């Protein structure tokens, strides 16, 4: 079978069975491409994984793009990314097509009334986990607090927070290296 069709199908299958985001895909990709097919060495795979986390964008798609590009340049990246995206694209499109009618049933609205506060809790919980891995201490704790307040109370765009905190880190690093 053609390499591109094969890689498209592999990533479609992985994309189809990973519920709950990009990190769930990592062991599946490793098993398929490193262990089974030996398309890529474990060292290269781990390097690309680190890189995919460093750059902005959707983690799962970044992995597909980086592996595809390493193996077959642009078209490798294209077909692997398309494979990753397609299952979720089709599922969500089907839901979007029917969700509005579906939501008119009072029972459905009641179910979602229970789900909404749960979703907010599911977003709040990783904030504290992430604070640990980002090494938040008493000297830099003002950064997340000020950013959150700017977005929450003043309607600041999160994009500015990203730009400012990156720039701030860069300037701080420059000042520190001078002393």
């Amino acid at each position, binding site marked *: 079978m053609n390499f591109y069709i094969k890689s498209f199908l592999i990533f479609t299958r992985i994309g189809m069975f990973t519920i709950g985001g990009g990190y769930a895909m990592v062991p599946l990709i490793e098993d398929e491409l490193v262990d089974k097919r030996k398309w890529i060495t474990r060292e290269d795979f781990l390097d690309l994984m680190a890189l995919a986390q460093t750059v902005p964008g959707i983690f799962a798609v970044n992995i597909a793009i980086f592996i595809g590009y390493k193996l077959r340049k642009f078209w490798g990246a294209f077909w692997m990314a398309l494979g990753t995206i397609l299952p979720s694209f089709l599922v*969500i499109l089907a839901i979007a097509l029917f969700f509005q009618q579906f939501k008119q049933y009072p029972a459905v609205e009641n179910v979602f009334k229970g789900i909404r*506060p749960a979703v907010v809790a599911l977003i709040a919980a990783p904030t504290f986990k992430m604070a640990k891995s980002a090494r938040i201490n008493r000297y830099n704790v003002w950064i997340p607090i000020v950013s959150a307040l700017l977005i929450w109370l003043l309607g600041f765009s*999160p994009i500015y927070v990203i730009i400012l905190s990156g720039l701030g880190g860069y300037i701080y690093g420059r000042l520190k*290296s001078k002393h």
Partner: protein
Amino acid sequence: MLFLQLFYAFFKIGLFGFGGGYAMISMIQGEVVTRHAWLTSPEFTDIIAISQMTPGPIGINSATYVGYTAVVNAGYSHAWGILGSIITTGAVVLPSFILMVLISRFFLKYQKHPAVSSVFSGLRPGVVGLLAAAALVLMNGENFGTANVQIIVSIILFVTVFIASYRFKANPILLIVLSGIVGYLVYG
């Protein structure tokens, strides 16, 4: 015009989306709910819930959903809605393609450069703030209710799910399903 706005909004989300799916929620919310009002706050919360229960990353799921819904809500047909979802989904992954080409040429050399690690020492705490903001912005009357009974039930659900997820690492899909059953029984 709407199609251009959708493209531009999701291109920005892809370009500045550092720190994984949950951090991206804040970015998507900033563009889709706060800035353009393509979705209401509860609609946005619903799509996050759907995202947790269906395959694929939240970035792709919300791009696809918003692309379709925003176009259809503006009065276009289903076919234009599907085109809208293709545009938004393409736009959110396009920066990754562009960056990859740049990275393979330049970035690999500079990945260990002190300037890059300085930038990330600032970005990491910023991303934590983004995540906190996403939760705070969603804690509103539209998601928690305005009637007394619903507010109390919502707060109980919020605290229970928070503890179950943070302290006991319970499965998010299970928590969503159980909360839906509670909603069905309490409000039915």
